[in-house]
């Protein structure tokens, strides 16, 4: 035992308590496949409307098949907001935060949760100012135009780097479209089926020597086959 007054440094002990829960590898995610009448736990109604609208543009439903919304991507993103990542738990978030060259990556103090909240608010505010309505109420072509400007950096906000926000939502949308269905998106493995990815089958010894089409559909973590 440590001696009388020798209590370990508070930040160290707190950190250790927090980190103690982290197992070596992430355990199996609890099964939360895409639901019919999903109620978001993080996003407000207005934010949810934005999210669905944005996802629908980033990966639209089209002649190639379902898009992000049909695949449950907004549910995926909402569920991700309950993970440590959403609070910056796997990023180094100590200050000071200073601007740096782009090569050194993300230097903002904002967590993913904050980025979504502030980013959605900022975009809707810009939208309101320009069009008298929020992003979700625009026509798809208008939405596309706005996203392109954000992506290019020509549409900005003083509240937040919209470019950063766009990068985040695009990445999360693709994660949700292609991640395992247990996380809430990639409903019925539509993302995997679109591209011909066999999911988590992860066994190709007899196939790899032949440059031929792989004849089987995907399988998910929980064993569902597509």
């Amino acid at each position, binding site marked *: 035992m440590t001696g009388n007054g020798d209590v370990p440094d508070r930040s160290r002990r707190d950190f250790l308590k927090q980190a103690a829960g982290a197992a070596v590898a992430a355990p199996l995610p609890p099964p939360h496949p895409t639901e019919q009448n999903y109620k978001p736990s993080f996003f407000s109604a207005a934010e949810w409307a934005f999210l669905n609208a944005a996802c629908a543009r980033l990966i639209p439903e089209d002649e190639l098949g379902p898009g992000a919304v049909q695949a449950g991507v907004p549910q995926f993103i909402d569920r991700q907001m309950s993970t440590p990542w959403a609070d910056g738990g796997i990023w180094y978030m100590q200050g000071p935060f200073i601007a740096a060259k782009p090569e050194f990556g993300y230097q903002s103090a904002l967590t993913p949760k904050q980025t979504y909240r502030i980013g959605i608010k900022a975009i809707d505010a810009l939208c309101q100012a320009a069009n008298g309505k929020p992003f979700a109420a625009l026509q798809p072509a208008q939405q596309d135009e706005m996203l392109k400007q954000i992506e290019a950096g020509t549409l900005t906000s003083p509240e937040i780097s919209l470019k950063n926000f766009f990068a985040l939502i695009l990445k999360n949308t693709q994660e949700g479209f292609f991640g395992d269905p247990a996380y809430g998106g990639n409903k019925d493995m539509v993302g995997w089926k679109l591209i011909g990815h066999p999911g988590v089958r992860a066994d190709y010894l007899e196939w790899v020597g032949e440059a031929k089409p792989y004849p*089987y559909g995907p399988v998910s973590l929980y*064993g569902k086959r597509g």
Partner: protein
Amino acid sequence: MKRLIGVVILLGAAAVGAIAVTARGVPPLPSVEQVSARIADLEHGRYVATLGDCASCHTAPGGPAFAGGRALATPIGTVYSTNITPDRDTGIGGYDFAEFLRLMRHGVAPGGRWIYPAMPFTAYAKMSDDDLFDLFAYLQREVDPVRRLNQPPAIAWPLSWRAPLALWTKSFHHAQPFEDDPAQDAEWNRGAYLVQGPAHCGTCHTPRNWAMAESEEPGQFLSGTAFNGGSPINLRGNQGDGLARWSEQDVVDLLRTGRNAHSAVSGDMVEVVAASTQYFSDDDLRAIARYVKSLSPADEAGRGQFAASQASLDRIMQGKEQSSGGRIFMDSCAACHRLGGGGAALAFPGLAGNASVLSKDPSSLIAVILAGTSLPSTAKAPSPLAMPGFAWRYDDEEVAALATYLRSSWGNQASAVTASQVAKVRRHRQ
């Protein structure tokens, strides 16, 4: 159900015969003058304890060695292994050798208490006086005494009544040490002695009769059975579910390391290798292999057969495998066991022609699918290669489909598995 009827009949018979039996009393203490003249070989006694695997049952998980307290499931309830450290009050410190010999030979403890055959005295009875003498000396002098009271069995009355035990033992037990077969050589006899005696293989691998005694029908010794939630395999010379395709070296390898070119241990056998057989001498393992490989095939009726076939693999490679079992195999098993069912030499057992896969009773196969298994780490083969379980991924129907696929692919021909068989194993594990 059969078991329950057996128990009821046994009790009925016991009720009639118990008084007569009790009146006749326990066997007298054997004469030990001759063997007691021996100077005990303590190192040999330690080796005999390893042969008999005393420590595994007589040690509670995480508990002190030989101090008892491990729960052993029996058909009539749970018994707890006893303290066989030399503690005078709670262990066997107060025994003399004659009492120990009577216990091992006759199944009667000091004070005349008949013991449950969960303690396989039915096999240990075959051990020689010399081996038992050295074993006793080892337990008394080399093992640390530990004070630990024996836990009474958790068996409901009237099944807890011991009198039927006396009848059972007198009816089914042969209290004689092993005798060499003069038609066989020393190595074979040594193997027979080890298998029938201290290694007590028959306790798990031999089917039992209506009274739960090991069958003595010809050709049934070690012919495989359902036992303790698993299905110890047929060790006789059958081509499908037995060891006909194994060499003697294969038998040695399996006992030394838990793995060989054909198969790998699972379930209760993992501990047997880890705690006991991996430490047998080379000569003893060869003797056991010699003896086991000399066993004639058991009656083929109802047993799995094997005739190697490419058809299953071809089907998969042509993109035609659509059965639930086959697709589950591709999704969960082939990554190690390979699409052709051949496994990977000494690392992942092949499933094609595998005695455990082909076993009449599929309980072990189901148990491994549900819970996975791990090879023991042994001195010669230290990697505890493990298979994860899939109970979380598949329901009973799916596991049954998978097990059926395994038992009917690559030339395997064994009976289909049902969802209720899977459910039973799943329940047993909870």
